């Protein structure tokens, strides 16, 4: 039996080797993703191009604008005479944020009722979120500083006890610089393994069936069970190698820390690959031809990308949608990958998630074997 399986594995490997472009692209796509996330994408937007209409041009307005610029979130790239000019600038897409300071700003500040209008381009989500939040916070902080200055000048402190204050110490655990890449790497490893496990198995099984060679193989002494193992093992190895490449580049080139145990991660990844292979087999048993299998795969990939927790947090989704997400193995593996790589937790913390993954594998393998057998009869 071992011999037969080994022979099958050898056959799959030589078939895969012949199709080197596919292998090349399979590896290129994740690498491209890694490089783009490493160098290009940042959801915490800084240096937002800003247009300013300063109708006061006095010390107070200048110090307010300085506070905005010094924060690093806003870069003044243009000036306009009034609010309409600012809106035109944003309409044209030259600036994303507009700051309008009305006349007599200094006088109003001293009287305590100065107004600043910040206009944010709402057609760009991340920019508008950052701009909205930081304009408020920076304006508030600047304003509070003015209050304290006034109080200090007035000598209120001399009048007796100190003023009450409250400081927030905010610690961001696991990822202190809030780097997008640190957050993306574990999810990418999970996505990569699922994509490749799904795509490679489904392609392998369906191709064989389309060419009519599956019957040829089945008339040999090879049993369906052996055939499955023989088909699966080479792709497990290829998928794992790709995943390790991505993690190695992340850790050694981009310096993303790997906090937990590598071997625990490696072991659980192999388990996870099994679940992807099971789903791949199920897809290929269900579909009639390569094209159908490919379309189903595209659908699965897209849905799991959105619902698996890779980018968008799952706890904000409605319960019905969360259940759909549970149909994909990636949903179970993302907390495991983040737990080990980013948080550095051990098996005891993850045992619940691992149990879910094991149950998923058993169920999906069972369904795949049944449909595979039915199709052959």
């Amino acid at each position, binding site marked *: 039996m071992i011999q037969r399986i080994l022979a099958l594995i050898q056959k799959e490997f030589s078939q895969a080797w012949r199709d080197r*472009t*596919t292998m090349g*692209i399979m590896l290129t*796509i994740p690498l491209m*993703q890694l490089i783009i996330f490493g*160098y*290009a994408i*940042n959801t915490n*937007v800084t*240096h937002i191009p800003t247009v300013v209409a300063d109708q006061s041009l006095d010390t107070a307005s200048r110090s*307010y604008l300085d506070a905005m610029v010094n924060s690093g979130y806003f870069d003044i790239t243009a000036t306009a005479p009034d609010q309409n000019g600012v*809106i035109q600038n944003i309409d044209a897409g030259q600036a994303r944020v507009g700051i309008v300071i009305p006349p007599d700003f200094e006088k109003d500040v*001293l009287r*305590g009722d100065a*107004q*600043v*209008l*910040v*206009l*944010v381009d*709402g*057609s*760009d*989500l991340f*920019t508008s979120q*950052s701009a909205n939040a930081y*304009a408020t916070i920076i*304006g508030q902080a600047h*304003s*509070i500083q003015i*209050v304290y200055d*006034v109080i200090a000048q007035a*000598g*209120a402190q001399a*009048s007796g*006890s*100190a003023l*009450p*204050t*409250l*400081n927030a*110490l*905010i*610690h*961001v*655990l696991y990822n202190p610089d*809030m780097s997008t890449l640190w957050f993306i790497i*574990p999810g990418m490893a999970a996505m990569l393994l699922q994509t490749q496990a799904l795509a490679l198995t489904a392609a392998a099984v369906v191709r064989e069936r389309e060419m009519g060679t599956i019957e040829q193989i089945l008339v040999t002494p090879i049993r369906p069970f052996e055939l499955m193992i023989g088909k699966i093992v080479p792709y497990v190895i290829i998928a794992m190698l790709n995943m390790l490449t991505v993690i190695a580049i992340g850790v050694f080139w981009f310096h993303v820390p790997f906090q937990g145990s590598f071997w625990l991660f490696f072991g659980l990844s192999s388990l996870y690959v099994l679940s992807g292979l099971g789903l791949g087999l199920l897809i290929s048993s269900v579909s009639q031809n390569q094209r159908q299998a490919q379309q189903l795969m*595209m*659908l699965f990939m897209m*849905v799991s990308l*959105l619902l698996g927790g890779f980018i*968008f*947090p799952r706890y*904000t*989704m*409605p319960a019905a949608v969360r259940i759909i997400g549970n149909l994909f193995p990636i949903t179970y593996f993302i907390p495991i990958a*983040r737990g080990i790589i980013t*948080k550095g*937790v051990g098996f005891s913390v993850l045992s619940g998630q691992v149990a879910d993954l094991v149950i998923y594998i058993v169920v999906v393998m069972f369904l795949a074997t049944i449909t595979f057998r039915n199709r052959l009869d």
Partner: protein
Amino acid sequence: MLFFALPLIELFLFAYAVSLTVTHLPTAIVDQSLDARSRDFIQALANSGNFDITLVLQNEQQVRQAMDAGTVKVGLIIPPNFEKQVLAGNGNVLILLDGSDSFSVQSGYNAALSITQKYSLNLTTEKIQSGGGAVILNALTGQLPITTTTRVLYNPDIADLIFILPGLIALIMQIIIVTNSAMAIVREREAGTLEQLLATPARPAEMVLAKLIPGMLVAILDMAMILAIGVFWFKVPFQGNILLLAGLSILFIISGMGLGLVISAVARNQRQAQQLTAVIQLLAMLLTGFLYPRTTMPLWTQIIGNLIPMTYFVRIIRGIMTKGVGLTFMWTDSLTLFIYAVIVLAIAAAISKKRLD
């Protein structure tokens, strides 16, 4: 079939499932003071709507464990003697955020900072007013000297769908057009029927056009469908001129077809064409401004993004749908798209001619 199902599924998932703005972060609190002041501060945090208190714990250690296990995303720790320390001018709270979840951490960070700042200022003004300092600071009525009013243009509630829908239309159209035209010629070539077709009186240009029209129709139908559902069902406002959008969409479709034809000319077989299309799709998702902002990207990724027609069309469709601006504001993008279409079609023609000779 999938060409119609996929856009719908994507639209409904983005509409109902995916949320880019995170509120109601699951939060654990540790209140080691249990006095009036600490309760008041916790109340202020909870009332903001950004934090849902789901767990009450005893110490920081337990908060870290809960965060390790992923049950909470935020931890708030109030040290003992909170009230006394606040009044003495050195009150501190510790806020822990789960950095492994990028959306949660950004929302949590900003909200926590803003709420504490405001709370602290309220304490100060309260104290000054009650202590008779009001005489000196008659202007201070518990209100900040500068009020920053932010107004979000085009999308006042920062609704995800208003932002997503135009980009989604661009993405789906591009996927359909590029896939279709990339497959068109390569399939014939693989099946060996390309030579047969060339032997007929049909000229190459006529042949290509005939092959491209079905894909074009599917793309237009998809666009109309998503647009109609988005506007009538999800009430996404359509601010601009629909005829202008229709006209520029055709320009976009032609440039997408050009790109597909280049792929078709370069690829040796269907599978290679498919893989090249997948690469372009990935780049389109990440670099064209569909989801992630282009302003923060380094120049070289912006240039790569400029090689994909969707980059120009995302700006155009957002301009028309969301901003309601006219051609005067986007003639550069429209002109670029036109030049792009001409260049890419010329390249496709040149390569195919070479391969046929």
